[in-house]
């Protein structure tokens, strides 16, 4: 069967059309202005070092549920992805289901934060944020939602402080770091993490950007910009694209000691599966996580493969374990229209049934 039929005259038209979009798009690009991030009103209720704990404003007409929800995002990216634009906000969706939403913004570590360890983050920052929320609401437990590396932190926290977590939601969270399709894990096995941290102190965000882009270099640094020409004609779509672009490259530096421990204990030694992870002198064991768990993963996730997340099943002490598979990618699970319709309401309903 003949498979190609590109006529020269059609080709010329296609090239002319592409060139026209490029020319017109230049104006929209130059007029794009400042790229704002975060759309839902919020208040900073607690600060410690570079950390800020935000509480989001409940929309009018919605009565928040009694058990507040704390979102723990990863350190490797900025958390405004969960609230990136008006019609693509996981935060908004959760508020609409009645959750009283808090989020930890880790800020931008600098070399003064180099010595922070996983103990400082999990038994320190997260625990003090939980205490603050409990004090403010007069409760002794909160709901916890961990995203990606934040999900791993949330599992650690739930293992070390099971008395403080009522329900746990993990989104695109790696549990088994050595599944065959985990490229990041495969690549890091031969990296001397001690040398890297001893040399650089904090790990630069640029190194993480390079690593993530290297997963699909031709699509992410090439094809994306060819396809982008198709949206340049619409100023709103240009802004949306630039917001994503800002987020993708807005990677904070990683506190050196935390990075050292996280990569060695989880990526290299597969700590959740093999055991042996100690934080603050206590062993982290998934069997100590006894609260209800909702584990959400993305079926086309190239950063945290589905099997890496599914490995949580059967490894905790929970008697109420639910999985939700989303047909999308690692980022789409927060920002796609489909996710807004399916994932966020599912989280809200699941929490409401158990709070």
């Amino acid at each position, binding site marked *: 069967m003949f498979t190609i039929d590109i006529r020269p005259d059609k080709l010329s038209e296609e090239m002319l059309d592409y060139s026209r979009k490029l020319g017109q798009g230049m104006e929209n690009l130059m007029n794009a202005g400042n790229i704002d991030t975060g759309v839902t009103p919020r208040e900073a209720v607690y600060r410690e070092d570079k950390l800020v704990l935000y509480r989001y404003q409940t929309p009018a007409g919605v009565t928040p549920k009694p058990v507040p929800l704390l979102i723990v995002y990863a350190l490797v990216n900025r958390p405004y992805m969960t609230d990136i634009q008006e019609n693509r906000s996981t935060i908004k969706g959760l508020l609409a289901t009645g959750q009283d939403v808090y989020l930890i913004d880790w800020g931008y570590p600098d070399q003064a934060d180099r010595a922070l360890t996983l103990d400082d983050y999990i038994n320190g920052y997260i625990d003090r944020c939980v205490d603050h929320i409990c004090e403010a609401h007069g409760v002794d437990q909160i709901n916890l939602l961990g995203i990606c590396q934040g999900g791993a932190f949330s599992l650690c926290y739930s293992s070390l402080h099971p008395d403080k977590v009522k329900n746990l939601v993990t989104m695109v969270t790696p549990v088994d770091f050595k599944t065959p399709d985990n490229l990041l894990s495969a690549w890091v096995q031969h990296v001397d993490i001690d040398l890297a941290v001893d040399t650089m102190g904090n790990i630069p965000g640029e190194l993480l950007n390079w690593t993530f882009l290297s997963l699909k270099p031709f699509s992410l640094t090439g094809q994306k910009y*060819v396809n982008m020409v198709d949206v340049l004609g619409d100023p709103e779509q240009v802004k949306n694209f630039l917001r994503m672009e800002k987020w993708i490259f807005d990677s904070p530096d990683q506190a050196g000691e935390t990075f050292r421990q996280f990569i060695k204990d989880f990526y290299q030694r597969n700590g959740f599966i093999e055991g042996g992870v100690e934080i603050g002198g206590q062993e982290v064991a998934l069997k100590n996580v006894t609260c209800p768990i909702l584990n959400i993963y993305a079926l086309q996730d190239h950063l945290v493969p589905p099997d890496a997340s599914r490995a949580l099943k059967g490894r905790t002490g929970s008697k109420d374990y639910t999985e939700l598979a989303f047909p999308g990618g690692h980022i789409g699970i927060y920002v796609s229209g489909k996710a807004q319709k399916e994932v966020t309401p599912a989280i809200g309903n699941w929490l409401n049934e158990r709070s």
Partner: protein
Amino acid sequence: MTDTGTFPNDWLELQRKYWENWTDLSRKATGAAAPTTNPWEAALDHWWKAVSPAAPDLGRDFMTKIMDQGKAFFALADGYTKNLGAMPGAGLGTGAGDGWSALSRTLEDMQKAFTSGLQGGDEGSRRLMAFWELPYDNWQRLVSSTSLVPGDALRNMPHKHLNQALSAPGLGYTREEQAQYQDLMRRGMEYQQAFQEYMQFFSGLGTKAVGRMRDFMEAQDKPIESARALYDSWVGCCEQVYAEEVKTADYARISGRLINAQMAVKQRMAIMVDEALGAMNMPTRSELRTLQDRLQETRREYKALRHEVEALKRQLGNGGGPRPALVRTTATPPAAPKKAPPARKVTPKPAPSK
């Protein structure tokens, strides 16, 4: 350039002129030589040179990225149409049967470019070969952004005579200093070798991608009718080949070696910078790190003590300060037994002045 409103018009006018020239050439006797330059790419370059100085920094960087990818896109289309135009009896309205021959010629040109380096193949194929430089172009940008040294500074270090020089032992008062520089050079050479191994890894993949493209085209049951579809297919084949190769143990070893070699160079440079700072009686990085570690340990101890004090206050009924221990209303599962804090990790620092 001050009137942004004329940009689209100027751009379109330029395109119209090139398009007219291009179709005019296509209509001439097919024995006539095809243009040696890609008119679309040339038009894009010409327009961008005029426009880019006026663009804001964010827009300029961004548009440069789009330009580069647009050129790759145009190059593929140009290569294909050039070969299509060279078919006997070809021209506008060419029958579908010649399309496959044109594509095969395009793929052969690309293969020639990949196997014979930048000297082989035509301009379009060379640009497509540059597409496969994206991975290590990204690495060089990273290196540039994390050091004062440009990303390609160590790329062509001559090492033929260096080995001899590096094996000579230091003598006299400056012995230690000489040893430091020798070590820096050795690490630089190791980095160069690691980078060359990294580049060599990718040099064979372009050819594989062309073969994959050919297999992909042969397996299709619906015709490809646009340059964009052709380009997307090419990107898909490149990603497939790339994904298969980078999950091998060999690649993990090569990329690990590259990162470790780069870190080793930086480590030696950091030691030498610290020594220079110390000689100028200025604070050094290693001193600051020691202070940071001690400060962080002190803060941890302070927070733990404060926690205990607040708990004691509550026990005594003073009610002061925030409540650190909660009044539990639910049954608490037994807590894991606390172990003694581990000994503080001390990473052996590289010996200075060696």
